[in-house]
């Protein structure tokens, strides 16, 4: 486990154009190759040694090496007093510049290839919503020391005066506990990996016309499956999938969260470091932290675990860079939320939603299931489909009833002195605490059914995270009171008391 080296003294960068580290000429193809290693290997050697397979494989490697060379040649960056500039691209030239005072987050990522050469990629996030496919400004890559220096230069303005910030000035909020590994199998990541690998493998085999049925091992497996009663096959397969998925999820947890550390730094940032092969260090400016989101997927919830992410501007949503705490005990998640926010909104007592919301949750959970069952039944009756699909769909009805009830049970909201808290979901229960000052508008929706049930859904609009967080199916009047109280005097001019409304019992 390489540590990030101690930070050198911070000096303002010169205005000279800098290049990425020359070792990237090798590292970039290396990183790409590692992802392609297995497909390439199969492509080149799985067939009968056809010439085209070898040529195609060689050409891929060659193209990757050339790509690495060209992208190094064409990329340069510089940091001035006011902005960070990046020029890149050979055929499609790009010139990116972002003002330094808009930098909210700095994400240092070192893949295995980077790690071998002591390099690190620097991704800079601004307040804008990254909806486009471009990742903003990424310096891929510079030496780890330079990366660390850039991180400090970019985020330094928040610190007091010109103090040099060293690693030791950070205070630890949380770090990985070996016992947390027991939550890894509860994340379904293993099952997901199996599914993806199976799909990918089958697709590849079909593309390359590999005849698996000709291989002795696979043929004997098929032979066994076909000649044994399903009562014996199903438990064996299920057991196998279970064991493999547990192992894979443990592996994924190890790869992603090894040596996880969450610290608060004196330069006004919260910093997450984690990863075994690919290491990541994400620094978030505390002033721009708009809240946290507590994720409790069903299984993890059953095991009293939770995961914590940051609600902030400047982090890509897809890449999982907003993670504050990997799957860990729920108590730890609440503690970390409290430490990071210096308030304790996630464990606030939530207000339940009215009973009308239960009917809506139930209806929405059951109706797709009923529709599917009816359709399958009709297909079985008129289109000669087999009968088991509609029977299975019908048997799943009690499950969707339970999910609907659980969704209702989980609905809740609260308003603390600084945060708006909202909880919803069943399979992926999410409790969001959003800073009231970070709310930049309201969307209030009412469907026909909600109108008749006297409910509405209030979405707090924010620049951070997903862009909007919804309080689902709240009582009409109380939802409006909530919005009105969260930002005083904004909504009030558009409200009227409904005393003139006919009073039905």
């Amino acid at each position, binding site marked *: 486990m390489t540590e990030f080296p101690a930070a050198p003294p911070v000096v303002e960068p010169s205005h000279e154009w800098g290049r990425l580290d020359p070792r990237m000429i090798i590292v970039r193809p290396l990183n790409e190759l590692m992802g392609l290693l297995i497909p390439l290997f199969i492509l080149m050697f799985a067939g009968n040694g056809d010439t085209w397979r070898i040529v195609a494989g060689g050409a891929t490697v060659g193209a990757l090496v050339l790509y690495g060379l060209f992208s190094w040649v064409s990329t340069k960056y510089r940091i001035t007093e006011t902005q960070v500039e990046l020029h890149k691209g050979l055929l499609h030239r790009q010139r990116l510049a972002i003002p330094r005072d808009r930098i909210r987050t700095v994400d240092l990522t070192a893949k295995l290839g980077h790690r071998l050469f002591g390099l690190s990629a620097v991704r800079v996030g601004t307040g804008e919503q990254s909806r486009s496919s471009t990742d903003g400004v990424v310096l891929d890559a510079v030496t780890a020391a330079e990366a660390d220096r850039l991180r400090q230069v970019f985020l330094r303005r928040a610190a007091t005066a010109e103090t040099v910030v060293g690693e030791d000035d950070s205070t630890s909020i949380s770090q990985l506990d070996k016992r947390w590994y027991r939550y890894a199998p509860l994340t379904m990541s293993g099952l997901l990996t199996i599914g993806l690998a199976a799909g990918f493998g089958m697709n590849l085999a079909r593309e390359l016309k590999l005849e698996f049925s000709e291989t002795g091992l696979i043929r004997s497996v098929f032979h066994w499956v076909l000649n044994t009663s399903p009562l014996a096959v199903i438990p064996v397969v299920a057991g196998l999938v279970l064991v493999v998925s547990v192992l894979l999820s443990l592996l994924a947890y190890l790869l992603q969260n090894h040596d996880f550390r969450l610290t608060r730094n004196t330069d006004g940032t919260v910093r997450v470091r984690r990863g075994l092969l690919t290491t990541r260090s994400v620094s978030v400016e505390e002033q721009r932290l708009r809240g946290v989101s507590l994720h409790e997927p069903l299984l993890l919830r059953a095991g009293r675990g939770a995961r914590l992410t940051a609600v902030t501007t400047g982090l890509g949503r897809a890449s999982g860079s907003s993670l504050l705490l990997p799957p860990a005990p729920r108590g730890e998640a609440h503690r970390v939320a409290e430490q990071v926010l210096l308030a304790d909104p996630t464990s606030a007592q939530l207000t339940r939603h009215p009973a009308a919301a239960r009917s809506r949750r139930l209806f929405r959970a059951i109706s797709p299931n009923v529709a599917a069952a009816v359709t399958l039944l009709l297909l079985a009756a008129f289109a000669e489909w087999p009968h088991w699909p509609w029977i299975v769909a019908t048997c799943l009805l009690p499950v969707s009833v339970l999910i609907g009830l659980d969704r209702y049970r989980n609905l809740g909201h609260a308003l603390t002195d600084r945060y708006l808290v909202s909880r919803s979901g069943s399979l992926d229960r999410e409790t969001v605490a959003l800073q009231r000052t970070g709310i930049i*508008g309201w969307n209030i929706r009412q469907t026909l059914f909600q109108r008749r049930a006297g409910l509405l859904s209030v979405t707090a609009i924010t620049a951070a995270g*997903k*862009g909007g967080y919804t309080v689902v199916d709240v009582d009409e009047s109380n939802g409006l009171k909530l919005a009105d109280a969260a930002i005083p005097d904004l909504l009030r001019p*558009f409200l009227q008391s409904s005393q003139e409304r006919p009073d039905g019992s």
Partner: protein
Amino acid sequence: MAHADSRQTGGVDNTEWRLRAPANLVSKRAILHWTLSALIGWVIVLGGQGIHLLVNDDPPAVAQTVAIVSVVVALVHVLVMPRWRYAVHRWETNPDAVFTRSGWINQEWRLAPVSRIQTVDTVRGPLQQLLKLATVTVTTASAAGPVKIENLDASVAARLSDELASTTQATPGDAT
């Protein structure tokens, strides 16, 4: 029903609140615009079905049923939707906020504080240009969707966007 859950907030405020309609209607020609847009969509759908029925010598009974149902749905949609929308779509601004109501079966109120406005765009589609209408889009720093005021009279739209733009410029900060 309305009073059943007033204990929810736990506060002393027991008044029942609801949103009032924003003050201003959109242009009367908006009805025409919504009608025409819906018509264009349905012409494509029904036209495709018609061609299928005409070309096919022996069209299946299902296709005819689907076509009849489509015509009925199209008629109801084209006649009802624009008028319903016209009754729902409303907007209002005050020095602090832009407030809109839109939708028809499902309705949505959107509120954006003027201090958080990033851009004010005016867009006029081809049909809107014919009808001298314009849509004003007010964006904030959020990805969750801008506040849109559809089918304003073009002159009203121009005045509104000028007004909002000048107020926005006067507000310091980056509005995030």
